[in-house]
């Protein structure tokens, strides 16, 4: 089975953990408990193929970001999450993307821009067009964009599945030759 290392990045409180836990366990975490570093494994079927997803939910708190380089080096696909209710969380993503490209030393890194908390339409400050525009400015091929809500379970599965598809597209090689047990690691 092919393994995928996915990394969830974004500022503090945007809902990275809420999205991840909603995807992995199907529950919405109401309480805000700032993350330091959590990891999850989940087996899913994407387009008829079994995949083992290893998801790293990272810290948005700046004091922990010294470790970011390491996560970025090991990650194959990235979810860049902001909250549609906080402009600064959207602005922070530009730097984050640049850091990923620098660490990965390539322009072709699968990522998805995620505008979370879209259930809070009344408190929206980042327009949907702003998100779409930023994603286009990144790299059309390698950057998708979706608005999500961890709370009402909107587009949660989609962002993870789309990211897996993007990794497949970038790197279509499969591990059919290798026997089970051996891992396929993509760089």
């Amino acid at each position, binding site marked *: 089975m092919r393994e995928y290392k996915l990394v969830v990045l974004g500022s503090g409180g945007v809902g990275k953990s809420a999205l991840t836990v909603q995807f992995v366990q199907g529950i919405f975490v109401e309480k805000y408990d700032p993350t330091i*570093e959590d990891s999850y494994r989940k087996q899913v079927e994407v387009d008829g193929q079994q995949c083992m997803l290893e998801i790293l939910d990272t810290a948005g708190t700046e004091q922990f970001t010294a470790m970011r380089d390491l996560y970025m080096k090991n990650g194959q696909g990235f979810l860049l999450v902001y909250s549609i209710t906080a402009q600064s969380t959207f602005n922070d993503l530009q730097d984050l993307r640049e850091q990923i490209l620098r660490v990965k030393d390539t322009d072709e890194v699968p990522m998805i821009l995620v505008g979370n908390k879209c259930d809070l339409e009344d408190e929206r400050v980042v327009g949907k067009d702003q998100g779409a525009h930023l994603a286009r400015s990144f790299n059309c091929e390698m950057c998708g964009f979706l608005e999500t809500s961890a709370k009402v379970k909107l587009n949660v599965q989609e962002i993870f599945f789309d990211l897996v598809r993007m990794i497949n597209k970038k790197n279509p090689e499969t591990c059919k030759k290798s026997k089970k047990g051996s891992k396929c690691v993509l760089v």
Partner: protein
Amino acid sequence: MLKLGKVHLELRFEECLNEDGVTRKLAVRVVECSDLPVTNGACNPYAVVTMCYGNSKYKEETKRTVVRKKTICPHYDETFFFDLEHRGNNFDRKHYDIEDIFSGALRVSLWHDDSRMAREVLGRILPGVFLGQIDIPLRDASSPQNSWYFLRPVLDTKYSSTDIGAIRLKISYNTEHVFSSQHYDDLRNLFLKSSNTVPNSSSAACILARVVDNLQDAAQPLVRVFLHHGKLVPFIETFANYEITHTIDHPTLFRGNTLLTKTVDELMKLVGLPYLHHILKPIISQICTEHLSCEIDPTRLQDSENINTNLDNLRHYIDQIFDAITDSGLICPTEMSQAFFTLRQVACKHYPDNNEIHYQVVSGFVFLRFFAPAILGPRFFELTEDTPDTQTNRTLTLISKAIQGLGNLVCSKSWSFSMKEDYMIPLFTQLSDTSHINAIKMFLDIISSSTKAHSSYIGTREVPVVLKQGMLIKRAQGRKKFGVKNFKRRYFCLTNESLTYSKRKDGIPLCVIPVEDILAVEQLQEESFKMKYMFQVIQPERALYVQANNCIEEKEWLDVLMRVSAANQNRLKMYHPAAYINNHWLCCKEVDCSIEGCSQVSSDHPLVKVQVDIDSDREIEKIHALLLHNMEKLEAMQDACGALEVYSGNQFSVPMEIEDSKSCFEMLNDLLKCVIGLEQEHKQYLKSVQKQHVKGSFERPIGDDSILSSSDIATKL
């Protein structure tokens, strides 16, 4: 840089006519040296001039000066000529073309003449001790030179030819010229009034935060300036108020990267490192040396490991760290406590009924941004020197997660961990009990219970935090004129506001001593009343003498009383170690009962009262440099303000969000004026420096590449 002194040389090419035609010579005049090093208490220096022709090692010629005795600034004024067309016995070519000459080099080395020491140089035995040398490529001497050169240590040739790999370094060096204080007053005052500027977004601090690339660059000098001038608390208060009114969902309050959160973060690093080290260093080094496996994630477990043993190991470490942290409330540095107190007061004002937020705003700094990151990356907080290995790193990560979870326990109504990762559930189940919750509450209460150093919220005062209580014996204070000064058992209670006593627990207080009236807390000499474990609480008019039940209790009361009164402005410097009895002080025998004390009060716990050296001028200079670097953004902001003013912001879309264009425009104007004024002074200063110090002059010898000297920068300006 190693100081080896410097040498003054004059080099020029000369052409002479002789029977062969034109010959070229290099004239090397060794004028003098300065500040040569002293060897074995002496310095009898001489210079050796070596000419190295072309690329070949073997075409060399050496000459030397006389020896000057007992001086580190010898004067030689000797000139040597090197014949550039001269061919020694080994030379088979008649002429060197000019290129060849210029690929040669001149070496001047200095020696201390000591016959006991000898050294072989270029095949010749030279008596003496090597002092330093300078190599000058002849290419540099194509025009006449008259310069000072720094002497350097000899290069070890052993490694120079072998390829030992390459390292790419990025080094940046900044020179700062700090003027005297009055030059910075205008700019400083603009920043110091940041907390009074309305609206907040038009303040100098806010504008600086908006234009810098990295908030930390702004927060670092600002926190120092505010702290130095006693403006940190009002600054935190104003900016916290601003943020709280601009944050819609309170769970994410103070969780972003803003000037406020960065400032508190910098403050904790500035005054809190010794405190952090005191708490964490022993246990972190224990973890690093013991190297026990603490992995509790079954998917990462090694075959030989037992998950229950690992959980026990991990629990043991977590307990130790948790106890060390929660016991440390009383030694938390005053400045940190005041910041936490202020944040908590602001939260109380906005959310009077939400206890969780009151804890959350404190925990969000001290656990989330201080303890947890320090445990996760001890190297960044100078807790360890080397990078821990993978297994230790994993252990530290797990501990950091648990400590952060514990700190966050009291920040929600449910008082529970959020059970996100399955493998953490057994651990979190163990840790969520009332004893942990109470310890965290108590700790957060203590560190955020500063005295009334700043109490603008009298109206919305919280319930005072009880810091310590218990039965003690006290002597009557003589408040009633004819009362007998006897000893009575009373129930004492100390909160962050006052010390009270009553007949029994929860009884009506018989006496209330506000914390700001506590001028000193000291032990009382046994002979005063022939009683052990006595201490005194000194107030403006009298002293309360109290006896504890044992020495441990006495120490605990002293510590906590000292701590709550640490921020009092009117604290005493001197006190009487014994009581005033029978019309005199037992200690100094003085009869005047109001005379100043005869002994120095004990000093605060060194962790509580941290001494930080702050040079306010230097910090303002840094702020000036930041503003100067972002001049374009400041001007763009000013244009935006102007546009808003003129067109009321309707006709044209202004690219920037400006809350109040008028006050913002004025502040920008003032800032720009200060920055431009200061910059002109800088330029003038650099010009004068440049005039004085020409490259190669005595003040700026050649070879001084360890610093980018001022004139290099001046030429860039």
